[in-house]
């Protein structure tokens, strides 16, 4: 199977033979095949004037040339380039070099679909950690609405959920110009709904959302405990799914563990494909750093990249921040950056596993379970306190390697055997209880945050 581009190049050779040189240069310069939809070839042209001309004068020739290469081609349609580069590519005038410029890069959001064109598959780094999510997203694009519907991506902040789901939207937009895509955060959805209800046209709201061929909803966890909004989402979901429209969700938790959601919605979230994007491993972080540096047009020696990958743990956003800092610093200094410089720059981002007090761990975990901090230290054996207490012991042991006796002593003078028992119990339970494993993961992230 030859690509569209090759097909067009071959067709152009034949077309050139059928026209005069001047006419060929004028009318076929800057043309390309934008996409192929079964037997229809879409030819991208630089302007409407060219479009009309080709349609009127050269249509037969073009069709003949294309069909001689591939007889499954039935029709040719002409579209004007979305952002055609004009014929003249003048060099920009000398800009005052020291002048700072607006940071516009992050402000390109298409108002029709809220997609940020910066997020594409080309810039998405695939590693072992996000392979599954990436493959699922690709499968969705091949058979939208049919392969996995809905696609549910979850993972902690900064792991690339938004990038992946926006890439799905952008890819879809590019390959199916006539399909409508919408990217919306759940918060925006809720606000829209509330506004529609307040203005008294809730029905318009329904119609408005149902017209999309692909609906991408980011961070669904934010509409927890909103009964009516969830109901609306539920109906919207059913309507879209019944007509085989693709739906993509992202969230920070597995759908089953989302608090404040009705079961029927959770069930629907889980009905398609669920993919997690966990924390990137060292190799993936190295790959990400390299990709980001390339985007900056910047390079660092391998040992420094390795050092950053190993030491800046946590999410990709943070990694990006560190790289920006390094790039900025080296531009300021105007020379290559050394190992020591990097170490000094990232000292705040390196998170040693020590340096957080037992009290702090207790406080954060108690907060997570919404129980009083002091109840952990007390002798109470209420069920809602016992479990968090055991988890605290487990975390202190596993994450911070505190000795059993000292854990016992710090948590209200308990015997070290109690601590051992607790840790064993949690370990054992985690094997069979996925929900607990999830919880522990979150707590781990919370403690290291």
């Amino acid at each position, binding site marked *: 199977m030859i690509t569209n581009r090759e097909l067009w190049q071959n067709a152009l050779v034949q077309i050139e033979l059928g026209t005069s040189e001047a006419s060929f240069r004028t009318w076929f310069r800057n043309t390309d095949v934008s996409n192929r939809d079964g037997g229809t070839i879409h030819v991208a042209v630089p302007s409407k004037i060219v479009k009309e001309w080709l349609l009127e004068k050269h249509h037969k020739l073009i069709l003949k040339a294309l069909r001689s290469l591939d007889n499954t081609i039935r029709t040719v349609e002409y579209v004007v380039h979305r952002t055609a580069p004009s014929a003249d590519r003048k060099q920009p005038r000398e800009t005052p070099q020291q002048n700072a410029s607006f940071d*516009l890069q992050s402000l390109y959001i298409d108002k029709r679909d809220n997609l940020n064109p910066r997020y594409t598959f080309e810039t998405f780094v695939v590693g072992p950690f996000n392979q599954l999510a990436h493959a699922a997203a690709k499968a969705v694009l091949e058979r939208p609405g049919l392969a996995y519907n809905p696609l549910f991506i979850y993972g902690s902040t900064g792991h690339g959920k938004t990038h992946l789901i926006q890439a799905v939207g952008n890819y879809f937009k590019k390959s199916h110009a006539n399909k409508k895509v919408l990217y919306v955060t759940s918060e925006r959805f809720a606000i829209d709904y509330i506004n529609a209800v307040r203005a008294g046209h809730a029905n318009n709201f329904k119609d408005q959302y149902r017209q999309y061929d692909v609906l991408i909803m980011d961070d669904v966890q934010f509409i927890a405990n909103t009964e009516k909004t969830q109901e609306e989402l539920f109906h919207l979901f059913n309507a879209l799914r019944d007509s085989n429209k693709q739906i993509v969700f992202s969230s920070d938790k597995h759908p089953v563990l989302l608090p404040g959601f009705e079961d029927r919605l959770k069930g629907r979230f889980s009905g398609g494909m669920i993919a997690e994007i966990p924390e990137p491993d060292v190799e993936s972080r190295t790959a990400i750093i390299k990709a980001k540096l390339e985007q900056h047009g910047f390079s660092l020696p391998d040992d420094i990249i390795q050092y950053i990958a190993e030491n800046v743990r946590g999410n990709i956003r943070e990694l990006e921040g560190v790289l920006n800092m390094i790039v900025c610093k080296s531009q300021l200094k105007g020379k290559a950056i050394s190992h020591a410089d990097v170490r000094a720059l990232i000292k705040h981002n390196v998170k040693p596993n020590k340096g957080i007090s037992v009290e702090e761990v207790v406080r954060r975990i108690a907060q997570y379970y919404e129980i009083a901090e002091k109840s952990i230290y007390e002798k109470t054996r209420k069920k809602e306190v016992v479990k968090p207490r055991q988890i605290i012991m487990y975390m202190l042991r596993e994450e911070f390697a505190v000795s059993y006796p000292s854990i016992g002593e710090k948590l209200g003078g308990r015997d070290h055997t109690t601590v051992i028992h607790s840790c064993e119990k949690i370990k054992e339970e985690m094997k069979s209880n996925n929900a607990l494993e999830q919880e522990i993961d979150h707590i781990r992230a919370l403690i290291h945050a």
Partner: protein
Amino acid sequence: MKINTIKEKLLRAVLLCERIAGKKESLPVLSCILIDAVKGISLRATNLEAGIEIHIPGEVKEKGVIAVPATILSQTIRSITGDTVALSSEEENLLVESRGTKTLIKAIPHSEFPAIPVSSTKKVISLPRESLMRGIQGVSYAASLSMIRPDLGSIYVTMKNGSIVFVATDSFRLAEKTVLEPGMKEGHDILVPLRHGNEITHLLERVEDERVGLSTDEAQLVLSSEGLHYVSRVVDATFPNYKEIVPKRFSTEATVLKNDLVEMLRKARVFSGNDQHVGFHIYPKKKICTAIARSNDVGEMSDSLDAALSGDDLDINFHIGYLAECLSSIESDSVVLSFAGPGKPLVIRGVSDQSFLYLVMPLNR
């Protein structure tokens, strides 16, 4: 073909067409003006990115179509002193006759002259000529001269309820002009490449109608007025959500007379040498507002400006051109310079003029 027409009308149409006609085209007919005398008389020219069609009054004695090189036709018509002109085709040539002068121009086969798609299926909105012109002129200097990034090389036009907003930026500065237009309905936005934007203002300066028609689709815009249709490509790109970069809070404010600022910048330009840098030292508590420019070759100047000041002390440097260019778009006598602190954009507005907003980034030092 055989037609009689008024010289003045013909000249105006030829001059407008000549600007549009292709300059270095491989297809010779694209550097031509097509004279079409089938249904009335119309002149057409195109460079494939933009096209123009102008109807002129006149008498058609014999129908026909002919294409002649734009520059040659314009030179010929320009030199005519008579009030009326007779154009007729003689074999493969165009014969121009007027009050005893006869000119024969070699015509070019016109079979490859493209149709100019002036009719659009989209709704035509009627706009006041003045506001459209003022809007584009008020911001066009801030657009980037290169089309490498199509959104920055274009003028962004949005129709809002009751107003039209024009914006342009080259990422170093940004100009926004709002023209109130009661009865305007919220419509979609377009990106007009700078080159076509300038062409539109040039056209608007030369038509007399109070209102002009504008219709747009994804690929092109059509501007029509008194028998004239101008078609140009629009860019289908996303314009940055520029509202985000307008600072919300300001640390230092200075209100100065516009003329003082213009004069100061004129002088600073002389003394700043190649750099074209000007430094401001604003100390509200000491009531000091000084502008300094220096270069090793010329010397240095320091001007103190009469200004109403408030906020924190600030030393900040700018590129002179970026400051000076916006001032002609400000109609009020005094301007407010609102600084958001070092490294942050400066906002320039006219006092009590909410229609214009200008944003400029300081120098990196």
